[in-house]
């Protein structure tokens, strides 16, 4: 029922092509706002990174490069499975679509698991500014500033991942109900755009946070 209504052409559009164009353009416009949302944080990061290079390098040493690299690979893999999901939807291969969507979600969950482990580890090391923080080494306030940005940037990114996982779950259910077809794969495509965007943010976070020094 719901499925049928969704696949139907909304009353304000003339034809499916127009609807598809509008949806995809809408997602791109939304991604523009997302870029600027992260952009504010990137500006803050750049300002302080320039002002306190040594302190930021010292802060970066407290991150686990191996886990960061692993997570980068996982997220890139999830982008691949997402792209393959879109392909499966476009060619109308329902089983493959469901499988790739679930795989994407699985990879996303692994990413969040590793991220959670890193957070937990920071908590144990008392390196969570504002919650549990004690640090006696050099550049104390600058290391704290670095970690504030680490948590803000990865936290905002993780929040986007969680939202993305929710959207993927909805897609998986809809796919299971057989909503998508070669004539109607728009939702998979636009949520795919969102997922890839989240991937791109991480592609920048990885060198900026983990690979200093």
């Amino acid at each position, binding site marked *: 029922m719901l499925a049928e209504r969704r696949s139907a052409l909304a009353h304000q559009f003339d034809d*499916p*092509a127009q609807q*598809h164009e509008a949806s*995809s*353009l809408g997602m*791109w*416009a939304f*991604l*523009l706002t997302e*870029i*600027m949302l992260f*952009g*504010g944080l*990137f*500006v803050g990061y*750049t*300002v302080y990174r*320039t*002002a306190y*290079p040594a302190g930021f390098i010292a802060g970066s040493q407290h991150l686990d*490069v191996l886990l960061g*690299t692993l997570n*980068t*690979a996982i997220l*890139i*893999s999830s*982008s*691949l499975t*997402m*792209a*393959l999901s879109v*392909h499966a939807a*476009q*060619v109308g291969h329902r089983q493959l679509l469901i499988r790739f969507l679930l795989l994407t979600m699985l990879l996303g969950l692994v990413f969040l698991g590793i991220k959670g482990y890193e957070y937990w580890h920071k908590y144990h090391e008392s390196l969570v500014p504002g919650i549990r923080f004690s640090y006696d080494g050099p550049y104390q306030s600058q290391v704290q500033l670095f970690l504030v940005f680490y948590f803000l940037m990865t936290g905002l990114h993780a929040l986007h991942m969680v939202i993305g996982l929710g959207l993927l779950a909805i897609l998986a259910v809809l796919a299971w109900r057989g909503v998508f077809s070669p004539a109607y794969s728009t939702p998979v*495509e636009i949520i*795919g*755009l969102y997922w*890839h*965007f989240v*991937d*791109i943010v991480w*592609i*920048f976070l*990885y*060198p*900026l946070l983990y*690979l*200093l*020094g």
Partner: protein
Amino acid sequence: MADIVPPRIYYRVYVTLLAATLLTWGVSRLHLESPLGVMVALTIAMAKAVLVVLFFMHVRYSSWLTWVFVGAGIAWMGHILILTMSDYLTRGIVAGW
């Protein structure tokens, strides 16, 4: 409707992205001088992002309007960074910070 991209392109892009990740990690082990190291890391990140945008996000096969939107995003991101830094980087010249 969007063109359908053959999966083998996705796989190729995927392998390139993984290789680039390894590369950037490897380069970071070399502990290059501060500006150079950052430049290399950011250039690789930029290249990876371009690959994702062009292929995974289908921009290579999309209308000019999508290109405009992507361009606007990059331009505005650069703009807020450059104009803000124009303050911070010229402060030292004057007394103060």
